[in-house]
C-alpha cells in the first residue's frame, strides 16, 4: 500500500493509541505493508476503527483480528513473525514476555527480525513499570514546567506532543536498523523510551542546568537566548486573534517602526538598541500591541513580511484547514473511507521531488484483511480459519 520505497517490507504492528501508530503510519505511507493486530476487545476508544482519530493514525495499514489472551494466539503470531521484517509493540514491559513472545523467544523463529519495544520509561530501570501518557512524559521532561509565562504556574503544550516525537524517533530507529540489516544481515532489538525521546528535545536547557548550576525559568514567548526584540505574541482585531513578531536586527527594527507609522515612542532612548529593547520589552510590547490591535493578524503579517520582518499568524484548526500555503503544497488530501465517507488527512512533511502522487487508502475496518493475511499469507485452509473464528481466536 502507499507508494514504493518500502515496498516488500512487512511490519507486524501491535501498537495502539498514538505514539506507536504514528511510527508505523510513516512506514505505511512509504509503502511498507503494516499489519495491525487488533481484537474486538481492544477496538475501543482511540482504537475504535470508525473514529477520525483512528482513521488519521492508521491509514494505509491492514487490520487483522487476533485475541492475544487465547493460548493458541501465540502460534499464529509466531507464524506471522516468520513472514515479517519488523515487529513493533508499545505495551507495558512484561506483556510480550507473558505471552511467551520476548525477543529471545522470537528471534529463534526469525533471527534477522527487527523488534521495537516502545514504552513510556524504557524496558529497564526503577520506573520501568510506571504508567505514562503524552502529558505525563511532557511534565517529566521539563517541557511543561518551562512552557509558561511564570515559574509558579506551569501551562505546558496543549496536546500529546511527546507521543508524536516518540513516533518519529521510532520510525527513525527502524529505518536505521534496516540500513544496518541490509549491510550486515543482522536483526536488532530496540528499546525506545518516550521519556528519553522527549528529554532529547530539551538538550540545551538540561546542559545549562547541569553545567551552569543555575535555575532556569519559563520564558513565555520571549526566550532569553533568542537574539530578537521585540519578540512575542500580540493581540489583533477580531475574536481571539493573535500574531507573532520577531525582530533580529536594526534594519528590521526600522522597517517595523516605519510600517507602524514611526510613532514618537519608537525614537525613545530605551528602545534604541536590541539590548535595550530586550531590557524594556514589557513596555515595548505594550506599545506594539497598541498598533497590532487595529489590524487583523493577516494584515499585520503581510505588512511586516513585505518589508522583511519575521511575523506569523497564530493559526487555529480552522485556519490550518484553509491555509493557502498548505493548500498550494497539497498538504491536506481527501481519502474515501467505506463507512465514514470522504475524510481529510494530512500527507507528510517528507516531500520528494519526483514522487508519483500517493496511492493512499483510509484506515482499515476491524479485521478487514483477515482473509488476505490468514489465507494468502499464512496459507490457512478455509476450514481452519472458520474454526479459529468460531472459537473466538480470530474475530
Amino acid at each position: 500500500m502507499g507508494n514504493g520505497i518500502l515496498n516488500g517490507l512487512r511490519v507486524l504492528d501491535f501498537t495502539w493509541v498514538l505514539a506507536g501508530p504514528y511510527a508505523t503510519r510513516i512506514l505505511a505511507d512509504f509503502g511498507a505493508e503494516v499489519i495491525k493486530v487488533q481484537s474486538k476487545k481492544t477496538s475501543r476508544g482511540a482504537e475504535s476503527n470508525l473514529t477520525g482519530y483512528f482513521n488519521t493514525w492508521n491509514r494505509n495499514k491492514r487490520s487483522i483480528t487476533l485475541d492475544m489472551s487465547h493460548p493458541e494466539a501465540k502460534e499464529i503470531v509466531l507464524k506471522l513473525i516468520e513472514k515479517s521484517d519488523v515487529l513493533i509493540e508499545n505495551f507495558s514491559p512484561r506483556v510480550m514476555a507473558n505471552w511467551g513472545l520476548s525477543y529471545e523467544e522470537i528471534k529463534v523463529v526469525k533471527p534477522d527480525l527487527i523488534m521495537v519495544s516502545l514504552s513510556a520509561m524504557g524496558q529497564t530501570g526503577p520506573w520501568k513499570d510506571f504508567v505514562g501518557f503524552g502529558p505525563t512524559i511532557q511534565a517529566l521532561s521539563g517541557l511543561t514546567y518551562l512552557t509558561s509565562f511564570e515559574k509558579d504556574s506551569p501551562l505546558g503544550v496543549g496536546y500529546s506532543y511527546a507521543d508524536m516525537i516518540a513516533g518519529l524517533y521510532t520510525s527513525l530507529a527502524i529505518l536505521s536498523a534496516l540500513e544496518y540489516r541490509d549491510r550486515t544481515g543482522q536483526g536488532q532489538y530496540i528499546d525506545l523510551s518516550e521519556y528519553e525521546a522527549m528529554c532529547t528535545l530539551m538538550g540545551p536547557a538540561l546542559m545549562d542546568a547541569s553545567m551552569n548550576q543555575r535555575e532556569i525559568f519559563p520564558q513565555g514567548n520571549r526566550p532569553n537566548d533568542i537574539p530578537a526584540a521585540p519578540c512575542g505574541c500580540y493581540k489583533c482585531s477580531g475574536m481571539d486573534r493573535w500574531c507573532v513578531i520577531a525582530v533580529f536586527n536594526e534594519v528590521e527594527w526600522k522597517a517595523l517602526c516605519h510600517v507602524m507609522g514611526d510613532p514618537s515612542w519608537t525614537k525613545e532612548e530605551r528602545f534604541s538598541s536590541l539590548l535595550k529593547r530586550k531590557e524594556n520589552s514589557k513596555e515595548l510590547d505594550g506599545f506594539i500591541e497598541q498598533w497590532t490591535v487595529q489590524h487583523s493578524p493577516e494584515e499585520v503579517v503581510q505588512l511586516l513580511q513585505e518589508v522583511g520582518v519575521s511575523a506569523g499568524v497564530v493559526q487555529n484548526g480552522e485556519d490550518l484547514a484553509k491555509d493557502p500555503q498548505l493548500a498550494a503544497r497539497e498538504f491536506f488530501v481527501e481519502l474515501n473511507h467505506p463507512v465514514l465517507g470522504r475524510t481529510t488527512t494530512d500527507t507528510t512533511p517528507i516531500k520528494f521531488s519526483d514522487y508519483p502522487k500517493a496511492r493512499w487508502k483510509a484506515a482499515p475496518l476491524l479485521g478487514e484483511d483477515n482473509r488476505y493475511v490468514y489465507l494468502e499469507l499464512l496459507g490457512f485452509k478455509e476450514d481452519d480459519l472458520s474454526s479459529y473464528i468460531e472459537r473466538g481466536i480470530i474475530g
Partner: protein
Amino acid sequence: MMQAKDPRISFLEGIRILDLADEKASFCSKLLADMGAYVIKIERPGGDPSRKRGPFLGNSPHPERSLFFLYNNTNKLGITLNLGHPEGKGIFRRLVSRVDVVVESFSPGYLKDLGLSFEILSRTNPKLILVSVTGFGQDGPRSQYKSCDIVSSAFGGQMCVSGSPSTPPLKPFGEQSYYTASLFGAIGTLLALKKRAQSGKGEHLDISIQEAVVSTLEHVWIRYFYENIVAKRQGGLHWNNNFCVLSCKDGHILISLHQQWETLVEWMAGEGMAEDLTEERWKEEEYRQRHLDHVIEVVQRWARIHTVQELFEIGQLMRFPWTTVCSPEKVLESPQLKSRGFFVEVGHPEIGTSIQYSGAPYKFDGCSLDRWERAPLIGEDNVQIYQKELGLTENELQELSAMGVI
C-alpha cells in the same frame, strides 16, 4: 551475508553527509551522526551564526561555548568554507562529489543564486540527496516569508492550543519546531537513501518546518475536520480534560482526572477530602465532564495538602499516570534516566572538562551508540578534510585562507 555482530560497526557507518544547516536543522544531521554517519559541518569563515546562541557554558558568551551549538553538532567534523567565493564554490562541488547527502536550511533560492542549485549539484554528483529544511517549503505563496521558531510555531498551530484563556497563545519551550522538522529530515534522508539504492538516482527533499509542526499536532485539525471544533488553549488542563496540572505543598503535579475514578475518590475520602465527590452521580464520566470545574476544585484542595513526591509515588504505585511537573534541575536527578545511562559525559579537553549531554533515546542490543565526540571547533578539521581528503597542499590551503575562502 551473515557476519558476527561487531559492536564497533555502527548503524549508519559509510553514509557521508555535508551539513550546511544553521540552527533550523543542525539537529537533523546530529541525529544521523550520533548513529554513526560521517558528517562534515561546513561553516562560514568565522563560524556558524548559531554559535552565538545561548545558553553558554559558564554563562560567558563565546562561539566555542554555546551549549545550543554544542548540543546540536555532536559527532560531526567541522570545516570552514565561503560558498560566496568562486574558489569556495569549486571546493564545495568537489566535496559534493564525495558525499551521499547535503543538508541545508537556506531560504529557498539562495543556493540557486550561488550557482549551487540541486540541478547543478546533481551534475557533479547524480546520486546526491539534497535535504532542504525551510520555514514554509520551496514553493507556495509563503515560501519567501521570513521565519523563525516562533513564526513556525504560530503558523503551524502549536501556539493556538498552548497557554491559558487569560494569557496570549504560548510558544512551546525550546526550538521545538526545528527539532520536529529535523526529525522528519533525518527520516526522509534514510528513505531517500533506500530509494536511491533502488533507482540509482539522487533526490531533492523539501521539508517545510510549518508542515512538520502541523503534522505533529495530535488532535487539533482532526477535531476540526471531523467535528467542526476549533480547539482553544486551556492552560494546564489537557485538551481532552483527562489530565491537569495542580498545585501541591511544594510544587506542581500532573494528574489524570477520570482514570480509576473510584480509587481516587476512595483515596481522597480516606483523608476526609473527597467532599461531595463520593456521591453516586459523580461516578458517571459524562457528568464529571459537564461539571469539571467542581471536580478540579475539590481535587485541587486535596492535592494542596500533599507534597508532589507523595502523590507521584503513591499515585504510580496505584497505576495512576501521574507525575511531578519537573524543572530541568529535577530532570537531572531522575533515578530512571540515571539508571539507564541516558546522560553521557562528553570530553572537552581544550576547556579541561567534560560536559553532560542528553544521549540517545534508543538502546540497540546488537549495536552500540557509545561514540560521543563533542562538536567541532571552528575549522577544526580543515587540514584533515582539505589536505588529506581533497589532496590540497599546505600552500594552497594557506592561499585559500588568505583569500577568505577557508
